[in-house]
């Protein structure tokens, strides 16, 4: 007994230290590749003197980001608001729908298949309808598109998570004559969290795509998607690329936010992956 303690405790600590070290080692190659790609891009543009309409140099894009910071930030602000709105709306609706569907265990798997099929529809095509309903310059018309795109992965994943109960846990709870509510609280919901967050991660990516595309269909001039489309049409390519960079940063930041939330909500998940 004491022997197991003596072995397992340092082993745990050792594993923690090893991951910190290997995390550093893992970060080096991609950073090198990233830096090399940037340098090669810059060199290529300068040496071959590629015109800006084909590909502006990274330095030129950064310079534009700096000079047009006001324009891009204000456009990013509008888009960010829409993205967050779409995430909130879509995930709340998805979670509520998942709870409702998981109540009907018999029909749930059929409903899930149908919803998964439905989710293959190009939701972005709905953008013009929402533009008509809410007005193209109304943020709601963009939020609705992103919301629907987020809804599907969150709903499908959460429902699967709620339905997938370890048979052992089910038997254990039955032997304790636990109520369905207790099964939900103690087993189903915590067990569904990983699936829910997987859905949110997909949703985070889709919401940014949804908003940008919805903005291509028309909207306030002051939004990243509109800015990208308009500056490309006007041949202001440094601005186009700067806006693309801003949109990418937004996508990354949103994804990181979901990862952070995941870690806060499921500390055991992190500990589990570490060991």
């Amino acid at each position: 007994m004491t022997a197991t303690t003596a072995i397992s405790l340092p082993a745990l600590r050792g594993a923690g230290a090893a991951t910190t070290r290997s995390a550093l080692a893992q970060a080096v190659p991609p950073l090198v590749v990233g830096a090399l790609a940037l340098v090669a891009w810059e060199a290529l543009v300068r040496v071959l003197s590629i015109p800006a309409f084909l590909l502006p140099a990274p330095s030129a894009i950064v310079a534009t980001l700096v000079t047009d910071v006001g324009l891009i930030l204000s456009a990013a602000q509008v888009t960010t608001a829409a993205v967050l709105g779409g995430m909130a709306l879509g995930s709340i609706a998805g979670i509520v729908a998942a709870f409702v569907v998981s109540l009907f265990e018999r029909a749930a798997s059929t409903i899930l298949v149908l919803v998964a099929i439905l989710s293959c529809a190009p939701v972005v095509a709905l953008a013009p309808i929402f533009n008509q309903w809410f007005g193209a310059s109304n943020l709601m018309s963009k939020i609705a598109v992103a919301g629907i795109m987020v809804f599907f992965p969150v709903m499908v994943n959460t429902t699967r998570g709620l339905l997938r109960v370890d048979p052992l846990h089910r038997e254990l709870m039955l032997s304790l004559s636990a109520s369905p509510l207790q099964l939900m609280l103690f087993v189903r919901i915590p067990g569904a969290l990983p699936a829910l967050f997987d859905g949110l991660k997909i949703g985070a990516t889709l919401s940014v795509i949804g908003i940008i595309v919805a903005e291509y269909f028309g909207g306030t001039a002051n939004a990243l998607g509109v800015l990208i489309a308009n500056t490309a049409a006007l041949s202001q390519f440094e601005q186009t690329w700067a806006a693309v960079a801003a949109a990418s940063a937004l996508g990354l930041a949103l994804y990181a936010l979901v990862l952070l939330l995941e870690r806060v909500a499921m500390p055991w998940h992190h500990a589990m992956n570490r060991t």
Partner: protein
Amino acid sequence: MSTTTLSGRRIPASAEPVSAPPRGRRGWPRPAALQYLAISVGLIVAAAALWEGYKLLGAATGGKIPFTDLPLPIASSDLAMPHLWTIIGALGAPASSATSESLLSYLLGETSVTLREAAYGLLLGSGLGVLLAIGLRELPMVSRGVMPWLVVSQTIPLVALAPIIVIWVGGLGLPSWVAVTIISAYLSFFPVTVNTLRGLNSADPIHLELMRSLNASRLQTLTTVRIPSAIPSLFSGLRLAAIASVIGAIVGELSAGTGLGIGRAILSAAYFYSTGPEKLFAAVLVASLAGVVFVQIIAIAESLVLRRRTQ
């Protein structure tokens, strides 16, 4: 009951339920086709009832939320929400006053243009994706540097590059459908690469050890162990890619001035919305159904391939 044959006895599989499903809750049987049909019809009827019910509610309360003075979030007028029969009816009517072609046949024609571009894009993108995945798998050093960027690239909105790609292709003097195909291809490229690579790396270690003990070449290991074990995740990548390729084609059409395709048709229906709102809804309906059918073709291929495997 006791089925004894000449060749041998058939004993029912162990009657001991190892982790017995309590109280006859023994996994759901594969939902029968009938159940699918019933629930699909139920959902469609429910959606239709919701639509028309909303319109009735709006008509009854004068566009207000019941018991309040607040307007409904979406106007229930025939301009904002045409009756379903108007939308269906519009599909049979001529597409415009200048032609006798029905709206449905016009939309299907435009959709086929879009789906063709999406299919080319999917083919191109997934082909490149599989090749890159194999390359990354066989060159682990490169993979360690590139893989994180591939993962990151999935979190950024690649559609944002669409207008730029249209310019590039135009600059090369190529027809604009090429731009649409390329946009569609690079959107479908990433999910295929990432999923295939994951699949190639998920090969059973026992099989890999077996191949090593047989002194098999890398190529042999790749073709006999790694690629077969990558098929399921390749297909899940393909399904995501198919969805992305349709979105890519529609977005490409918006950015490129092709004048053809369902994306353009939706845009022009939106432009002439006030003279015929039902046309926009009809176009979106056709586009959505076409997208679903397109992706389901991949799903059906997947189930055929994977079913043969489990038999």
